[in-house]
């Protein structure tokens, strides 16, 4: 590859090693680009994406970016059940220096900062703590960003930057208690083993309030869906922050730092902020909007068995099903409208696998002649309902508008 590298003087050696790789890596990427493609219905495009099977421990994924990896779950996966298989679970990394060798005997998780006894825990140490598990949706802050209008820069996801798993691990609270949190602690900050390519760039870190960290629900997971995490999903340890966006779910978790003041790091304070308004909504171009760190998720629902543009038959009994989640709490109702949101009727809810997870819903329709729309609307147990009009903000965060599926009736 005739390619002049302008960073040779200023980037780290490991960054360069990870950069262009070897001849075999080049072959891998060539194969990936020659693979099948799919089309995402993003307004204004581009709509075409490669499908790739080239990532370790992953099945076929929608390739949004090779390096650092951004891989989207093909949407038909969500029709197969409420738990997203590990090998199809979406992937999102910020920085390209990602360890590709993890030794379970030498891996250490450190707990430090405003604590009585700093810890360096082996995986055996972590796994010896009381075990907990829960189902929870892990959703990128920018899931569905590609549907924003006007369009905004960022990972141009359709709706597949989300997944639901049974997470198993230990309570963050138990780990913090073992270190002994000192009086005056305010935040707990998390970092993984990934690093920026360029020296001086901000390492990816996120923090949450000390009370949140000790709520007994935030966990350090060592298994998802009964197996160890795929490396690109955060092996060996990943923070799980139920009900909160994925940006807080730090992968390859290796550092827990208790802070006695606010967290001024870029990734918490500046990046991943939303307008402090209902629905994180603002007008395009609006100035002087107060911004706050993104936090709890909001309800969403999707039809999964009928794609937009599907043909159905007039007078035929037609099953319609999908998934919903309540965001920061459980699903109360899912309702369906076939008259453009004039009237709604409840769908039947499937098994409750835990309030933070996906919930399947189903109903039956008998289409009349003419084109038809199916809208699904989730209300969570706090009474929060999906909005009829899409939100907008300059980062493309927190989309949760009521989705509409258009059907052709013949």
């Amino acid at each position, binding site marked *: 590859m005739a390619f002049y590298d302008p960073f040779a003087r200023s980037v780290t050696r490991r960054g360069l090693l990870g950069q262009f790789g070897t001849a075999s*890596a080049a072959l891998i990427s060539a194969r990936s680009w020659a693979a099948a493609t799919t089309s995402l219905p993003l307004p204004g495009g581009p709509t075409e994406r490669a499908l790739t099977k080239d990532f370790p421990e992953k099945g076929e994924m929608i390739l949004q970016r*090779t390096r650092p990896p951004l891989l989207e779950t093909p949407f038909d996966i969500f029709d197969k059940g409420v738990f997203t298989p590990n090998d199809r679970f979406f992937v999102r990394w910020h920085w390209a220096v990602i360890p590709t060798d993890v030794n*379970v005997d030498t891996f250490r998780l450190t707990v430090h900062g405003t604590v009585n006894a700093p810890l360096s825990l082996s995986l055996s140490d972590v796994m010896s703590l009381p075990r907990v598990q829960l189902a929870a949706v892990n959703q990128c802050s920018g899931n569905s960003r590609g549907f924003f209008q*006007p369009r905004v*820069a960022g990972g141009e996801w359709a709706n597949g930057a989300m997944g639901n798993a049974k997470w198993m691990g230990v309570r963050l609270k138990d780990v913090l208690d073992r270190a002994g949190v000192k009086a005056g602690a305010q935040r707990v900050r998390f970092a993984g083993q990934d690093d*920026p390519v360029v020296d001086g760039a901000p390492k990816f870190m996120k923090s949450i309030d000390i009370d949140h960290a000790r709520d*007994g*629900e935030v966990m350090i997971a060592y298994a998802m869906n009964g197996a160890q995490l795929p490396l690109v999903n955060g092996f060996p340890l990943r923070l799980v922050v139920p009900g909160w966006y994925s940006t807080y779910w730090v992968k390859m978790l290796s550092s827990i730092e208790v802070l006695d003041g606010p967290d001024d790091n870029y990734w918490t304070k500046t990046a991943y902020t939303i307008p402090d308004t209902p629905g994180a909504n603002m007008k395009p171009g609006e100035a002087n909007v107060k911004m706050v760190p993104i936090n709890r998720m909001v309800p969403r629902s999707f039809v999964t068995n009928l794609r937009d543009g599907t043909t159905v038959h007039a007078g035929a009994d037609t099953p319609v099903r999908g998934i919903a989640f309540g965001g920061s709490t459980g699903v109360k109702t899912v309702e369906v409208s076939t008259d453009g949101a004039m009237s709604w009727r409840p769908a039947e809810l499937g098994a409750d696998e*835990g309030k933070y997870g996906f919930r399947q819903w189903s109903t039956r329709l008998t289409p009349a002649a003419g084109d038809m729309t199916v809208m699904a609307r989730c209300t969570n147990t706090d009474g929060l309902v999906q909005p009829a009009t899409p939100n907008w903000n300059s980062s493309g965060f927190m989309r949760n508008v009521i989705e509409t599926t258009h059907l052709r009736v013949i």
Partner: protein
Amino acid sequence: MPMVLGKGAAVGAVAANLALAFAGGSEAVAQAPSPAIGLTLKSISVELPSSDRMFPAGPGSEAVNNNCLACHSAGMVLNQPALTKAAWSAEVHKMITVYKAPVSDEDAAAIVAYLTRLKGSSSPHP
């Protein structure tokens, strides 16, 4: 129920008894019910694919290829929608000021011009 666990017999594996039966219902976090079965964490060594995709040739493509691909592959940029010159300028300067990409002023201007030509939008927003 806390369990004290030693390292697995095999080097490169850490074992714990894990219950794969899942506690359903609305309780958010539940102790794992019995029966428990073993799960062993295994060391892993993988290779992540790289990309040799380049930006389409044109005025400024050399500046883009030389400055941008060290940190990220081209696909992310090529998947972007049409954006205004101001939006492209903001993106490029975020890479420089926040993410510390060492890009000269001259190259930064060439990159903004290239991206605006490749994926420009005249709409006022964003």
